[in-house]
């Protein structure tokens, strides 16, 4: 097997694996990035969600050999040092988790939504998030967290604009 090169969280990695291996397995078992979770193995629950070139993808059904040079962001790469991403902060502020096992995937899916649509309506949030499962049932809080993150991202952008 020849090494596969991956760009994850602004770092480059080389792993010796079969290109058919799922990206989730590579992240968790080969690179010890265990923040992305296994929930169903068929792209039905979203616990394994990562960003590939900024877009939410199910890493459990993504073969590592198909990723190429695209940039991968996992939950571990979202905060800037000690500063949480506004979506992470909003999940804490809204207590939008119970067991937290779905949380990484929920956060990555939310980040992807807000990149695509900075001020999503409630219906848009629900449609975009519907493939992510939370068995503890914190959905209403996750919707509130996304709305809150949207608003704080908006304020941050506005403040930046005003500063320039």
């Amino acid at each position: 097997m020849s090494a596969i090169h991956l760009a994850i969280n602004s770092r480059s990695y080389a792993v010796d694996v079969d290109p058919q291996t799922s990206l989730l397995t590579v992240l968790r078992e080969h690179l010890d990035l265990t923040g992305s979770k296994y929930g169903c193995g068929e792209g039905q629950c979203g616990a394994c969600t990562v960003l590939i070139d900024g877009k939410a993808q199910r890493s459990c059904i993504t073969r590592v050999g198909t990723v190429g040079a695209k940039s991968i962001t996992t939950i571990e790469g979202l905060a800037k040092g000690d500063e949480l991403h506004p979506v992470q902060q909003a999940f804490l502020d809204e207590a939008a988790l119970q067991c937290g096992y779905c949380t990484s995937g929920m956060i990555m899916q939310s980040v992807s939504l807000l990149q695509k649509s900075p001020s999503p309506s409630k219906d848009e949030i629900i449609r975009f998030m519907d493939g992510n499962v939370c068995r503890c049932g914190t959905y209403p809080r996750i919707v509130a967290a996304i709305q809150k993150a949207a608003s704080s991202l908006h304020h941050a952008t506005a403040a930046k604009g005003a500063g320039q």
Partner: protein
Amino acid sequence: MTDASLTPAAIEPERYELRAAPLYHFDLGRRDFFKFLGAGLVVVSVLKPLAAQESGGGRRRRGDSLPQEIDAWLHIGENGTVTVYTGKVEVGQNIRTSLSQAVAEELCVPLGKIELVMGDTQLTPFDMGTFGSRTTPTMNLQLRKVASAARDVLVGLAAEQWKTSPQHLVASDGSVKDPGSARAVEYAALIKGRQLTQTLPAEDPLIAAADWKVAGQSAPKTDGRDFVTGKHRYPSDQTQPEMLYGKILRPAAFDATLVSIDSEPAEQMGATVVHDGNFVGVAATTSELAAAAVKAIRAEWKSEPQLSSKELFDYLRKGAKQGNDPTGDGDRFELGKVDDAFASADHRLQQTYTISYIAHVPLEPRAALAKWEGDSLTVWTGTQRPFGVRGQLAEAFHIAEDQVRVLMPDTGSAYGGKHTGETAIEAARLARAAKHPVKVVWTREEEFTWAYFRPAGVIDVKSGARKDGMVTAWEFHNYNSGSAGIRTYYEIPNQRIVFHEVNSPLRQGSYRALAATANHFARESHMNELAHAVGMDSLEFRLRNLKNERLRAVFEAAAKQFGWGKSKAAGQGFGMGGGYEKLGNIATFAEVKVDRQSGEVRVIRVVSAFECGAIVNPDNLRNQIEGSNVQGLGGALFEAIEFENGRILNARLSQYRVPRFSDVPSIETVLLDRKDLPSAGAGECPMIGLAPAIGNAIFDATGARLRSLPMAPNGLKLS
């Protein structure tokens, strides 16, 4: 006031809470604590009020030759760090935070100073397990007593140092202060260089709920940051150096026996293969290799024809075991003369309700990592009963319990589904053969198939009422689903209530709220049917037959918030359901919308009023109530396990529908805070009102009465 929810009889037997008391257990001697924890102050218990209470009589203590049993509950180190030890475990109910609040309150230290060690059989006092909503009524109280005892010692030390009376001193913010002289000393300074023990029970009165400053507040999850950054390591995230990945060869059907096996191809791939009776598994360097190796094994299984889900309800009613003593076995309750009352009633009603098997679907499937060092075994696993799993491991490997350590990292949910230790045993068996640590993580299909299910059931209800709306006769038979919540809280003079045990065709066990969901669905649906027969408003009908003030209060509060009695549009329906369970009281009102053309049912709005005594953490309580209602939607409307010939037919998330964002109604919660009553748990009770509320609302919208859970897996078929 009739307050049956506070009497012991109100705690229904938890038939399906799988219980296993360990055979023996050797604790540390008192001196050993300091070797292990460092100097400081330790609060210990010698008698085990909690363990004895939970297990019904302290079965652990056998013979006089064992060392005196001492458990450490709390340690304050020389640097002032407070470490609290509890056998309870965290699965998302957020007790790591609520228990920390209890300690912070009584010990008078900031919440951030407290670290909880949970569910580690080597470090924490014995605990039966985390189930039955027992953490708040028992462990919260226990830890408050522990913290109070520690505070007492610290205040005493300061009084000694200052040569004053403890009565003149106060504890606050990690220090003892003397308001008279403005002196203050930190706890850490008081215990520096000492080895102090305080033994429970201490006599100190606890701080009254009305005076709580930390408890009673909405503290955020203490380690929330680890969860939003992906840093927290769940059981399935655990690793060890030289670790291998394990995979089990599953039988072709339940109860199948292995006829022949050729594991040579798997061995040639470099996997360690274990074949021990019906157990066949492999350990390999990667999970893909382990999966491929299992696939390469050629195995032939033999199994008998088995029942299918289509024949289930007929089977359950016919298959009831006949007890030798039908009136004295605790499964039967009789009051008055139910047959006469039924015969003379103005309105009579007889109906049958059914409940399908459902799966817990914890988002983190079962996982365990096992490591042997000689004959000593350490297992990290997600279980609600670490001590129970320790016993199962000791038994499986014929070793003493003190050679087994089970640790439970905060786990990706359980809902009653992780009481048993299958994965732990599988990992340990493979690890012993492979001479390496081995991790086993079940696939979703394995979790759907080889865990256990919420029991299916058939419930027959026969009732009679007078013209004025008083219920006079109530006969209730539950086949298989369980006895939790089987007794009625309505004041009915003539009752016969019977639980019938059946040999379940599928492996069944605990599920959040146990059978209370099924029994409340039948009872609260039936009460509506009876109200309809009498021609009375369903709220008025309930209140006429209900004396329990706590339950009346939640029905009235929810009705007010919901706006009961308001007019409705076409296709819209309103309904309610409620009851008490696990010391909590719930009333849930639902609004549904039914599209008569497509048959689609949408739950639009849910209002729940809940009361569980003095509230420990209001926002977390709301979170639990919301979560119960969301999870409850699945069992109410569309979740059901389909099976045939020993196989599960819908063992994938693409085939088994769980509630999603788009299913969720607007949810409002009304909390009734009874600071005058002991705090009770809230993880289960809030779930029980939803299914009947939805069923009653669907009837209100359409006139169609749905008596089977799930009620509308494929929408309604309205003619």
